[in-house]
């Protein structure tokens, strides 16, 4: 017959473990964020937090309502597929406050070569030039109108 008194110290160990587990359960209910597990194993609120981050690029639609004249010209030319901010940079702030925040005029001497400088890795269908040979340092808008860049007899700015 087993003498229970001799195993009593084991019960004390078990008690310590049980207290620790209980403490863990209490800690858990306190520390796990409320929205955790809402959609999966993550904090559900995080989705909303990330979706609410501020926007820097306004998107083409924002430009259209005020600058429809330029957009008409652009739509007919070779840059129809190039969005405004691809050249003009992020302008959400300007779209929010058009009079207060005025974008700086672009310098075509450095802007256009970012795309159009000749490079063997660029696809052959893409118009590219060795800028030194082509314009010898002159800014591109000397001859080209950026919003409708192909030169024909009346397209000079």
């Amino acid at each position: 017959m087993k003498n229970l008194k001799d195993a009593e110290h084991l019960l004390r160990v078990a008690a310590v473990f049980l207290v620790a587990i209980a403490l863990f359960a209490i800690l858990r209910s306190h520390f796990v964020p409320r929205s955790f597990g809402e959609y999966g194993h993550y904090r559900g609120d995080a989705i909303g937090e990330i979706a609410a981050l501020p926007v820097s690029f306004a998107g083409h639609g924002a430009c259209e309502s005020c600058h429809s004249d330029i957009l008409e010209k652009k739509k007919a030319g070779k840059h129809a597929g190039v969005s405004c901010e691809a050249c003009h940079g992020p302008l959400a702030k300007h779209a929010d406050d058009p009079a207060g925040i005025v974008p700086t005029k672009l310098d075509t001497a450095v802007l256009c070569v970012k795309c159009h400088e000749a490079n063997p890795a660029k696809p052959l269908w893409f118009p590219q030039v060795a800028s030194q040979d082509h314009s010898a340092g002159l800014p591109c808008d000397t001859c080209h109108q950026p919003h409708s860049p192909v030169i024909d007899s009346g397209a000079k700015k």
Partner: protein
Amino acid sequence: MNITRRKVLMLLPAAAVAWEYVLAGTPEAAPNYNRTQHWWAMLIDITKCIGCGNCVRACAEENHVPEGYFRTWVERYHVDDWPSENPIVDSPDGGKHGFPPNGESGGKNFFVPKMCNHCADSPCTQVCPVGATFMTPDGVVLIDQKYCLGCRYCVQACPYGCRYINPDKKVAEKCTLCYHRITKGLTTACCEACPTGARQLADLKNPNDPIHEFVRTHSVQVLKPHLATGAKVIYNGLDRSVR
């Protein structure tokens, strides 16, 4: 000229629909965004990429990406006739300032934009010990930077090298597919800035999205298909030499 609020502008779907180069499918206004109605992906057309680096710069601007780290980047490949499995690849500062001539002549040369593939069976979310990185119901893999421990396990698990640790915040960071933009009916910053339409946001759940027709009529591929990550960035014109 009237000063129109940006919020009002975003409720003009007509203007946006006309823009097929940069925006795929019909955008929805922010208050009406329903996560279960979208399954986001991206189409990257290598035959159209000119390596201008606009996308890298735009992403860095839009998402405040720290210097020296990349949420998207462009690689330049030079492939000689044979053996084409050993290309010469470079990505100077991720292609952020374009590509200076590299003196490689002849052979096959092209650019490959890279980014997070928002994998459907993402190995990075699998290994996160606490649930700080996850996939949203609409198919975007995000990072909860308030919860991330910075253990870097996810960075190790990503086969594509698209993750990094933000040196100031000390948490993991990566492309969010501009979640804060696409849920408002805008396209991603990289697609917005791409001048040739080489990058296009796609919504696989939208039956009218051009991607369905594109995939039907072109040979497309994903990166490292043998790893079965369920990558959702679909490439057109992907060469065998691309790593």
